């Protein structure tokens, strides 16, 4: 079964790996994954990854937070138990709104930040007690690992990867 095998090509330079990704893509091979010790600018574009939509989710979460703050201040201060505090009676939310601006702002930030980070953790599948999935411990130090699907083209692919400056090439079974 050749389709369950992948090839692991190691690189030790961010510029080399970026060029290698471009060359491998140009030769019409499917790059499964690239593991990096630090972010390499332009790598996501070179690999053809779609832009992340996390910023959009943050905006939506922020709007939800703002809505929560408006509802909370309205319900507690105006609807449930209106009081006359310091000669400023609580008859309408709109008239009392200036005093609620700090709460509205803080809850917007609170919701946007926390829910976005939770979304990030869920989408990237990272949480406490999760087992790491990088195939080689060197990929958090100074090595970059390109994982390519193998379809009975081992020799051709190895030659191409050697040409792109890979420092180590292994064929492994993918579980």
């Amino acid at each position, binding site marked *: 079964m050749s389709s369950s095998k992948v090839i692991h090509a190691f690189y*030790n330079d961010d510029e080399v790996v970026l060029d290698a990704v471009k060359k491998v893509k140009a030769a019409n091979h499917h790059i499964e994954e690239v593991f990096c010790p630090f972010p390499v600018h332009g790598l996501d574009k070179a690999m053809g990854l779609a832009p992340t939509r996390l910023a959009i989710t943050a905006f939506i979460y922020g709007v939800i937070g703002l809505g929560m703050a408006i509802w909370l201040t309205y319900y507690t201060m105006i609807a449930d138990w209106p009081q006359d505090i310091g000669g400023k009676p609580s008859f309408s939310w709109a008239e009392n709104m200036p005093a609620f601006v700090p709460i509205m702002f803080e809850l917007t930030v609170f919701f946007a930040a926390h829910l*976005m980070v939770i979304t990030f953790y869920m989408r990237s599948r990272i949480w406490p007690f999760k087992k790491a999935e990088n195939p080689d411990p060197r990929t958090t130090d100074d090595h970059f690992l390109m994982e390519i699907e193998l379809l009975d083209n081992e020799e051709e692919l190895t030659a191409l990867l050697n040409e792109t400056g890979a420092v180590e090439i292994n064929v492994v079974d993918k579980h």
Partner: protein
Amino acid sequence: MSHYEAPIREPLILGHKSYHDITEDIARPIEGKANKNWYIAFYISLAAMLWGFGCIFYTVGTGIGVWGLSKNIGWAWDITNFVWWVGIGHAGTLISAVLLLFRQKWRMAINRSAEAMTIFAVFQAGLFPIIHMGRPWNAYWVLPLPNQFGSLWVNFNSPLLWDVFAISTYLSVSLVFWWTGLLPDFAMIRDRAVKPFQKKIYSLLSFGWSGRAKDWQRFEEVSLVLAGLATPLVLSVHTIVSMDFATSINPGWHSTIFPPYFVAGAIFSGFAMVQTLLGIMRKVTNLEAYITRLHVEYMNIVIILTGGIVAVAYATEFFIAWYTGSQYEDYTYLSIGSATGPYAWAFWSLILFNIITPQLLWIKKFRRSFIISFLISIAINIGMWFERFDIIAIVLSKGHLPSTWWRFEPTFVDVGIFIGTIGFFFVLFLLYARTFPVIAQAEVKTILKSSGESYKKLRDDNHE
């Protein structure tokens, strides 16, 4: 060419380093054994912390009467320390968020420790309002929870409640910002750990970070958005803290310039504390190649700027107090009355430590000196504490009627709790320095080629 940086810029990473060298350097303090100095510092801090906890138990067991407060001065050291600690926290967020938005590469060597400082400082700050409640077990009453008291709600018109929301949002957002940045670095420690227990702990802390290209793409986006959220957040926090005073009708507190002036003061004091901590840390952890003279100089420039804003604010307050011609304004914390009255020592300490001493930083030689920067940073820490003490104690010590005049004298409990929080802060920081990657190594690796000394030299030689 993608890593080009103008030759005129000084390198941020000294010496001949490779990516692997950075890994080694950052992992060394964690994997090695602590030296004697660390233990001495730790035990002194621990002793101070335990003494502080003792004073807290005494306060809670006996009552707030054990402090030097009275009916006229209802809060003094506690709120002084609260504002001081919150202010210190601000530099961490400024370095990690604002400097990220401005694409300042020098932030990368110091952001991790500055954020750690933020979180530990906000812990200390949060203690004071809770102890001052007298019945800390009722602290949850500040939250808008449905309850059995006839659906009584918290008062959203009150700046003190805004504070609750601002500080808790600030603390929790700073914490996730910090932790998200730590994941790749914990993963680095995890992947090179040899001891099974260490491997287990760092696996848990790193949340199984694997460093896929997609993860990094999301990581960078999340960092950018969090920075965008944290920037207005940090400004809002000290704005709201200043409103605790500014929305009152006390002469000296009822001041419209308080919000921007408090924010500038917070950044000023926070950078001073970063300078103090890093001055020690770079020596203890042998990270001189990453925390360089240039970093110290840049921080000193921020200190001069924010210190200048604070000085202008002081001058404004002093002038306005005099210009009103009101006798009640003649004993605000910046006035002729306080400069010559019984609190003259506190007034002049403020001027000396906060306004005069930092001016030495205009001299380039001092600005780039580790030891002088360190000493000035300590002076600013003291000066900023006096600022808050003056605003609170001097203003409250002279009410509108002579019968409300009162001189605040701290008791040993006031002093003990303050010293205790300093101890607690250093205990946390020292433990952090032994167990956490103190420099954001993944980020530092991204600037190695553009700002590393050997790479810059190589590029410049090729251009000749």
